């Protein structure tokens, strides 16, 4: 059947399935996210953290050329890794130092989330190896890093970074 007329295109469109199941069950990911309401740190801490983070990430990005050319997806990802790596290390160290003092249920939720994010990061890196120029994957990588930081910041005091604040910098 060709679709070289409006009627034929309409007929084909009407045959499209209304429902397409995802390739994997997404419910565990949704459940983990809705199960972990994120208590916020005091505002003065977040403001201070945001300032430090903005300075830190901004300094890293100063060396990044504006208006990056065609291979920018790879360059951007390298910038992301460079920017987030020390933040992730510091956040995870802070979390491990306080994990024993968390409510057991909250700790389970946090660690479920962190495990999901860890798997997601691994999957993103595999996908990036296959398609290193995919700009959208770079963006997903950035959001995944941000989610990891946000989870840790929500349950640890003196959070050095508020991902909502530095989101605009990257």
């Amino acid at each position, binding site marked *: *059947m*060709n*679709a*070289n*007329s*409006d009627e*034929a*295109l*309409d007929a*084909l*469109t009407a*045959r*499209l*399935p*209304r*429902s*397409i*199941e*995802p*390739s*994997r069950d*997404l*419910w565990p*990911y*949704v*459940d983990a*996210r*809705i*199960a972990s309401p994120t208590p916020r740190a005091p505002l003065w801490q977040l403001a201070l953290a945001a300032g430090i983070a903005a300075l830190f990430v901004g300094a890293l990005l100063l060396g990044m050329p*504006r*208006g*990056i050319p*065609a291979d*920018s*997806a790879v360059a*951007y990802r390298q910038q992301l890794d460079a920017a987030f790596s020390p933040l992730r290390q510091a956040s995870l160290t802070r979390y491990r130092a306080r994990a024993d003092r968390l409510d057991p249920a909250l700790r389970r939720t946090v660690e479920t989330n962190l495990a999901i994010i860890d798997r997601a990061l691994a999957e993103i890196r595999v*996908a990036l190896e296959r398609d290193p120029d995919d*700009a*959208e*994957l770079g*963006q*997903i990588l950035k*959001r995944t890093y941000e989610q990891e930081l946000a989870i840790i910041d929500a349950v640890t005091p003196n959070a050095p970074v508020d991902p909502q604040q530095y989101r605009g910098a990257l």
Partner: protein
Amino acid sequence: MTDPTPSRWGGGEAESIRAALAGDRRAFEALYRAHSGRVHALCLRLSSHAATAEELTQEAFVRAWQRLATFRGDSAFATWLHRLTVNVVFDHQRAQRSWYRRTVSLDDEGDAVDVLPDRGSAPGDRHDLEAAIRRLPRGARTVFVLHDVEGWQHDEIAARAGIAVGTSKAHLHRARSLLKEWLS
């Protein structure tokens, strides 16, 4: 908007909604199971990227959980959920455009691919149409999916997307012309 799904605000779904509003995640899982396929189909067709569609599907349900109290039952739950999903996709696309502007400087139609769809199946079948929809420029794809697949009217598409009604009609015309050309 014409909702092809009959109203589901009643029976077991109403109980699930009420229980979810009270914080019952198992009840919300029932809603997820009932609607995830259609939400994912919408995200997949609008984003044209499998991994992004799954991420957007998750985001839509997280936002639905957070905003469930705003569902008053004056429309079908599916209608409410699909509108919310479209907002999630639009938010994602706006963020993406902002990111592109700061980095790779792609224009709004940067994902336009004016090539023939893959020919893995007989020309003109629905698999071809799915592939062709994925290859449409973003604006044309968005309007085609919302208007021709989901049954929205141009004025609602224009309001949600922040474009003029005439722009929405132009996008649809371009989408249909490209699809007919590719699938003929």
